[in-house]
């Protein structure tokens, strides 16, 4: 918009100068000379109009050549994220029965729950409502999101509160003493 405004100002100034020039030329001529001048002026007018267009286009393009990179710069580059399908979440001994803990699953949190001696569950730790990180509530044996009081049961299904969908479930396997969480495919 500023560029257009500047262009208008520039053009106005230029046109005024040109008008004054024409008046001066015509004023000092007579008869045939005037006719010739008018013809010449006509040519000049066309040339000037063409020149005007080129100039305007060039000016706008050159200003835009600085605006375009600035806009592109603001767009954050896509960083290819290594997709995580399997993580080691620690040793079996680190978890008491009826307890849960947030573990790292790639760049995102996952909630690992030891339901009892032999039963394990793992879910995405991100609440399906508005992206907060959930936690395991030992007293209710449910998964709770503190942000808007959403509850999920131990199957990841919504019990109450605003979450619209169940939590994404991961598979848990025990390899010796090690707990392994895997993204379920299909």
């Amino acid at each position: 918009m500023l560029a257009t405004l500047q262009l208008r100002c520039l053009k106005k100034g230029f046109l005024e100068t040109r008008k004054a020039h024409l008046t001066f030329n015509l004023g000092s001529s007579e008869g045939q000379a005037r006719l010739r001048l008018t013809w010449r002026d006509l040519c000049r007018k066309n040339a000037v109009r063409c020149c005007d267009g080129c100039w305007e286009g060039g000016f706008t393009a050159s200003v835009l050549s600085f605006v375009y990179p600035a806009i592109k710069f603001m767009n954050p580059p896509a960083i290819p994220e290594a997709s995580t399908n399997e993580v080691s979440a620690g040793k079996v001994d680190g978890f008491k029965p009826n307890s849960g803990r947030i573990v790292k699953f790639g760049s995102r949190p996952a909630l690992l729950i030891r339901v009892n001696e032999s039963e394990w569950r793992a879910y995405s730790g991100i609440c399906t409502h508005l992206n907060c990180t959930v936690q395991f509530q030992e007293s209710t044996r449910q998964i709770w999101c503190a942000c808007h009081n959403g509850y999920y049961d131990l199957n990841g299904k919504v019990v109450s509160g605003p979450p619209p969908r169940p939590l994404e479930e991961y598979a848990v396997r025990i390899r010796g003493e090690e707990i392994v969480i895997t993204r379920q495919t299909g």
Partner: protein
Amino acid sequence: MMSERKSGLGNWFDERLGLDAIRQFIAHKTVPLHSATPWYYFGGITLFLFVLQVLTGVLLLLYYRPTPSEAYESVQFIVTRVQFGWLVRSIHSWSANLMILAAFIHMFSVVFLRSYRKSRELTWLSGVVLLGLALAFGFSGYLLPWNTVSYFATKVGTDMAASLPWIGEPLARFLRGGEDVGGATLTRFFGFHVAVLPGLATLFLLLHLGLVQRHGISSPPRVEEEHRRRGTAIPQMPFFPNFFLRELMAWYAALGVLGSLAAIFPWELCDKADPFASAPAGIRPECYQ
């Protein structure tokens, strides 16, 4: 005549903002016309480059991280991964240098045309403060990429400050945010560069421009003398649109020079600063050329 042409929207804004007063002011503003008039453009060019610094600086802020462990990497990310990041950083660096150049040309033109004379002393002094602020911008900004040369330049620079009598040691400590240049210095220089200095510069810039409006533009004594002898008034050029459009062309030319320099000679990043490494042989700011 003017009010007849005004649209309903124009009237609405006029009633609330008093645009007519501004219009009247601009209509009466003139610039003296003589052989030294071209020197008057350099103040405007400095201002234009300052505005570009603010704009490109804000852009760089979108990605820059002011900690020793991330600063260099974030600049590296800007110049290698962000679209046109190399160009934005190059423009910021080149524009900084050209701004100092334009500010010095502006200052010397004021000295040689003797525009600092009576009634304009405060304009001169506020200009000196602005030049000091511009240099402080340069000194604080130089450290931010956290590369070898900027690290050692800051060590040297703050050590030079320490050699001042009386205030030297406390000043160096204040600048470094501790005994030596480190993470605390980087955080502090970042704060100076993006908050303290811009605030101060805006204040002094408003004062400087306000004073220029108040006193008008000075003519050199020899021009004044010549016209006094001849009994004529110094010819004037209307500020708007005549001078303004010429100034705009000067800005456009400056943008062309800046864009060419930034594209042809992109600013280098060099190696990451290592506080436990010796200063490498041949270390000097020319590393950036």
